[in-house]
């Protein structure tokens, strides 16, 4: 028999009553919150160009320009770039703007079944190339700085390797590079995504895309929930209760929920490349990845490279990110491990300013 907690009966009842009161107040509070109170990605920006579902934006400056070369933020195809500008006091974008960067961002849009045949080749060699061309036209810069996040890091790396003359500096953040290096990771909660993807066959991946035409955002959300099983269960009861009577914290929570709920589908053929060529066959680090009929050669990365990883990243375990040392074609290669998880490193209160400062300090030394 399990021994039960030994708190007194009255104490337990008082605790239960306090608990109920908190829930009641929380429910009332949640019922009163309007959508306009839960806005994300509000930093002012202007659309520069639009192609299919892809949009390039340029942010309005918040400080005098300190770094001449413009920087393009490239997010993953699995989530949305709005995470980089979650709210005013938790915004990588604002941190960069306040330090005098000329910041641009590409919004990949929301892929649908009609985008089934979009490949990573298309994203890198057409859309990303169009964005870089627009930035060069708009600023007169011969080459731009690229800042890739997660899958966006792989896209920027591939572009930089294929078009090195157009990239001045390459910044990778929480980017998977050696997709099998998770096997060296000892933490139980790290790297399940790699294990899960390898548990599927190439045929399984093909059949999923044949059926759905895309890799559904809802499906990926369910897979992500397996990475933190108890957190996924307790976030709408215990976690929510923690913040429900504190309006600023509750609004932070809801903004994150808004970002999580906006999980786009991943274009079909690009998802096949992502899961099979990269997660299963690990072609990038082996130098076997081909885009547009050309090999993505890491030695072609002759520009300075900053590789930022999150020390407690359960989605992209640090060993999978820390894989470029000695493999790139530049001696100016820097690795920077920062405290936090995959998303927390950008949005947590503690990390604010750390990522942005690290990037700006590094870029400012290479802006000649």
């Amino acid at each position, binding site marked *: 028999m399990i*021994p039960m907690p030994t708190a007194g009966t009255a104490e337990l009842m008082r605790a239960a009553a306090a608990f*109920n009161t908190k829930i009641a107040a929380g429910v009332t509070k949640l019922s009163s919150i309007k959508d306009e109170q839960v806005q994300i990605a509000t930093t002012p920006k202007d659309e520069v160009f639009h192609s299919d579902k892809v949009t390039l934006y340029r942010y309005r400056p918040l400080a005098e320009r300190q770094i001449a070369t413009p920087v393009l933020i490239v997010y993953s195809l699995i989530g949305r770039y709005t995470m980089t500008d979650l709210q005013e006091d938790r915004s990588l974008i604002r941190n960069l703007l306040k330090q005098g960067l000329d910041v641009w961002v590409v919004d990949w849009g929301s892929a649908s079944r009609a985008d089934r045949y979009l490949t990573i080749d298309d994203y890198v060699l057409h859309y990303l190339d169009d964005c870089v061309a627009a930035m060069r036209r708009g600023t007169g810069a011969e080459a731009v700085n690229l800042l890739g996040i997660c899958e966006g890091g792989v896209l920027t790396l591939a572009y930089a390797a294929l078009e090195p003359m157009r990239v001045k500096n390459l910044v990778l953040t929480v980017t998977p590079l050696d997709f099998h290096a998770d096997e060296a990771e000892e933490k139980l909660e790290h790297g399940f995504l790699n294990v899960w993807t390898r548990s599927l066959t190439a045929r399984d991946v093909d059949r999923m895309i044949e059926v759905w035409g895309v890799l559904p955002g809802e*499906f990926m959300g369910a897979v992500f929930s397996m990475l933190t099983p108890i957190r996924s269960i307790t976030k*709408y009861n215990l976690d929510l209760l923690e913040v429900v009577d504190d309006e600023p914290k509750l609004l932070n929570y809801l903004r994150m929920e808004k970002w999580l709920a906006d999980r786009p589908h991943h274009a079909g053929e690009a998802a096949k490349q992502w899961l099979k060529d990269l997660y299963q066959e690990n072609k990038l680090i082996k130098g076997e990845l081909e885009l547009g009929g050309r090999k993505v050669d890491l030695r072609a990365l002759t520009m300075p490279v900053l590789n930022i990883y999150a020390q407690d990243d359960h989605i992209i375990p640090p060993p999978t990110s820390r894989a470029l040392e000695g493999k790139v074609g530049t001696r100016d290669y820097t690795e920077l491990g920062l405290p936090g998880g995959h998303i927390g490193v950008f949005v947590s209160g503690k990390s604010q300013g750390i990522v942005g400062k690290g990037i700006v300090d590094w870029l400012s030394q290479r802006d000649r």
Partner: protein
Amino acid sequence: MTNPWEDFAQRSRELYQQQAELAKSWMEGQAKLAGTLAGSTGQEEGSQGQGWGAEAAALADLWRSWLKLGGSFGGAMPGLGEPGQIAAETLGRFLDPVSLALVGGSQVGETIRRLTEGPRFADLGAIERRMAKLMELWLKVQQAARGYEAVVAGAWAEASRRFAQEVQEAARAGQAPSQPKDALKLWLDVANRTLLETHRSERFLTAQAELLRHGMDFLLAEREVVESLVEPAGLPTRTELDEVHGSVQELKRRVRTLEKTTAAAQEAEEPSTARAATAAHKTKARAQGAPA
């Protein structure tokens, strides 16, 4: 045709509402009783009497909090209040925690099931042979779903066993959690560890892949049947639409390649113009405050 899942959900909602009404009536009665008890025992003298009075008062507070809680849920039900969309969705999850889905067979299994189950068979018409094949595939999906759920249920059972063991060991060492919060934390830690181990196990990964595999097989076979029905009527099929999307994508690639080739050729013809434009941009950037 009635969607059995919607029907089931509707019946569950009705049942829940009836139970909520019943519980509310019962609690109101109990609150009155507790109030009476609190009033009577509170007048008693002596230490034992004071103890009873404190517990009865706490009980009365607890009932009142339940009643208030019931009222707040009622006010927050769809149609009664008008919360914003994000808040309302969060509230919905709050009232219907994902834990129920996970305990019953996991949120992931449910997601796969929803994504893999298409229209009901009756929509397809009676093509016996194909229908029989479809039925066979559907049964395989169900079988795989049961296998997957069994693995998940096994993980929860294992988590419970480990929790009991850890609590007993702690109790023997005189360190059993004395507060509910401590016990809950221990349970969540144990359950998290057990589920993570399960998710990485061959048994779990195989069961989940099987569920996915059979689901995909079923949906593709179902599409085949549907297409065989609509094609003779001249209606477009999924396969045809996919072909069109493939062709459009290929055309876009060719147009872009052509545009870039043309632009590169023009740039090569007018190098001096391009250099002049670049120099002008640099001057402008310096004028805007960028360092030289």
